[in-house]
């Protein structure tokens, strides 16, 4: 089918002079730019969710609430004592690979985005955290672990990340839906623009097309010429759009990295993801080609 569309040799319909060519390229450029950014967003969110899922399957966090006393040092000492007991207890639990308390430096790094520089963790009543790595293939009874842990360290509580991950998954699903709607709108609007540009051009070149028909040309012959031109314009517009989209993706990705804090940490695209984004000009070329081809076939029925 595609081979049939692009097989013709000579361009008798003078489409290269159409003023709508620039409009079409600009439309496709904008479409590919928006699609590229939206697609990169979806792929990044997917990568982020996969990464979170992977890390959550093999990890949990234990939180030790701070002991608040009039004597700050005594409170801190009690908190750290419970943390040590909890670490020792967790290391004995079946399926646990490691249990490492987060250092003051790590805690400071985590709360820095909210409280800024120049803070001392030991001065603040912040919870202490233990990063626990668990075997992915050993099922852990979290309820039992929680009860047992509370006996050793009453201030400890387990967070297996499921609740907030579920919320993030819902948020990511909304983002994906939004991106999908953007993509559909972009495709519909671009196809519509190609449809009307092609129809306008057919009216403009009616004289030439009628001569081609009189010489025995089938509608397919004319449609091939439009499809060839549209695919070229679609591809070039797509390349321009991609050239604009790539730095935009890097800039947005840079912004995302600035708000790290452990929330958005895996926003970079894989090579495959870049391949998908990079294929957009080919997709836009094929879309423009097919839209132009079928518009011509559909419209010429009304001609001689």
């Amino acid at each position, binding site marked *: 089918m595609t081979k049939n569309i692009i097989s013709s040799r000579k361009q*008798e319909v003078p489409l290269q002079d159409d003023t709508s060519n620039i409009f079409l390229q600009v439309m496709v450029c904008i479409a590919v730019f928006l699609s590229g950014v939206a697609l990169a967003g979806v792929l990044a969110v997917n990568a982020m969710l996969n990464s979170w899922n992977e890390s959550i399957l093999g990890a949990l966090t234990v939180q030790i609430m701070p002991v608040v006393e009039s004597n700050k040092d005594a409170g801190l000492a009690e908190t750290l004592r419970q943390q040590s007991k909890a670490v020792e207890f967790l290391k004995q639990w079946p399926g646990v690979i490691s249990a490492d308390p987060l250092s003051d430096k790590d805690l400071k790094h985590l709360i820095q985005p909210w409280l800024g520089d120049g803070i001392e963790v030991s001065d603040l009543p912040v919870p202490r955290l233990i990063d626990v790595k668990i075997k992915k293939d050993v099922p852990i009874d979290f309820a039992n672990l929680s009860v047992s842990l509370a006996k050793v360290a009453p201030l400890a509580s387990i967070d297996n990340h499921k609740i907030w991950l579920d919320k993030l998954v819902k948020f990511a699903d909304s983002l994906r839906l939004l991106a999908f709607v953007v993509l559909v709108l972009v495709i519909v609007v671009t196809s519509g623009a190609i449809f009307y540009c092609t129809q306008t051009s057919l009216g403009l070149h009616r004289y*030439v097309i009628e001569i081609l028909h*009189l*010489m*025995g040309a*089938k509608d397919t012959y004319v449609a091939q010429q439009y499809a060839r031109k549209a695919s070229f314009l679609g591809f070039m517009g797509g390349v321009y759009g991609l050239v604009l989209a790539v730095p935009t993706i890097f800039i947005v990705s840079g912004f995302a990295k600035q708000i790290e804090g452990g929330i958005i940490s895996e926003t970079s695209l894989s090579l495959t993801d870049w391949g998908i984004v990079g294929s957009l000009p080919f997709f836009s070329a094929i879309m423009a080609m097919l839209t132009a081809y079928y518009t011509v076939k559909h419209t010429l029925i009304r001609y001689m």
Partner: protein
Amino acid sequence: MIKNVGDVDSVISMQNVGIRYGQGAEVLSDVNLILKRGSFHFLTGKSGAGKTSLLSMMYLSQKASRGIVKIFGRNVSYADRDSLALLRRKIGVVFQDFRLLDHMSSFDNVALPLRVCGMDEREVRKRVTELLRWVELDQKINEPTSTLSGGEKQRVAIARAVINRPEILLADEPTGNVDSDIAHKLMKLFVELNKLGTTVVIATHSERLITDFPYPRLHLQNGGLKIYRPIVEKKIGRGTYD
């Protein structure tokens, strides 16, 4: 001359054909006609008599408002678009207003009927170059037709009409813009094509042409069609009509 529509030898047949534009009166009415394979006819009539309308039905640009039109035995009212395109490939047309593609060269204009058939480009080049040389336009082979004189354009239009060795050749005033030498040469080309089996219909106002080439005449008058046969005066090689 007039037989049942569908005669096996007929390449064009019309039965009770009428044509009108919009809500106006019929330009042609009750036209009955059979053109046999290999026949040669002139088409005459005053301006506005319907010559171009009759020709346009023959080259499948215009549909009859009523009646039956068959080309190569095929009722064109029931033919789909692709079938009409294939029928048109067997018909060469010389238009009164040339209908050349002025953004293209003489070569590309003449090559058009071959290219739409998908002919190999080497064969296209060979045939087109040869024919343009024959119509004495080999010096202007690569020039856009917009730069050619009226006579040169007409020769390009004729070359385009015959390049495909059509089974039917329809010409609307084909010698109107050329001098008498070229006109004679072109008419001889039409006659040669006719001898090779091409059915020829030439619309003309030229009494000289009709006299010099004694072929039957289809005459349009008051929307109807009459057919006159030539009485050949063999000694001087000229014809008159009954």
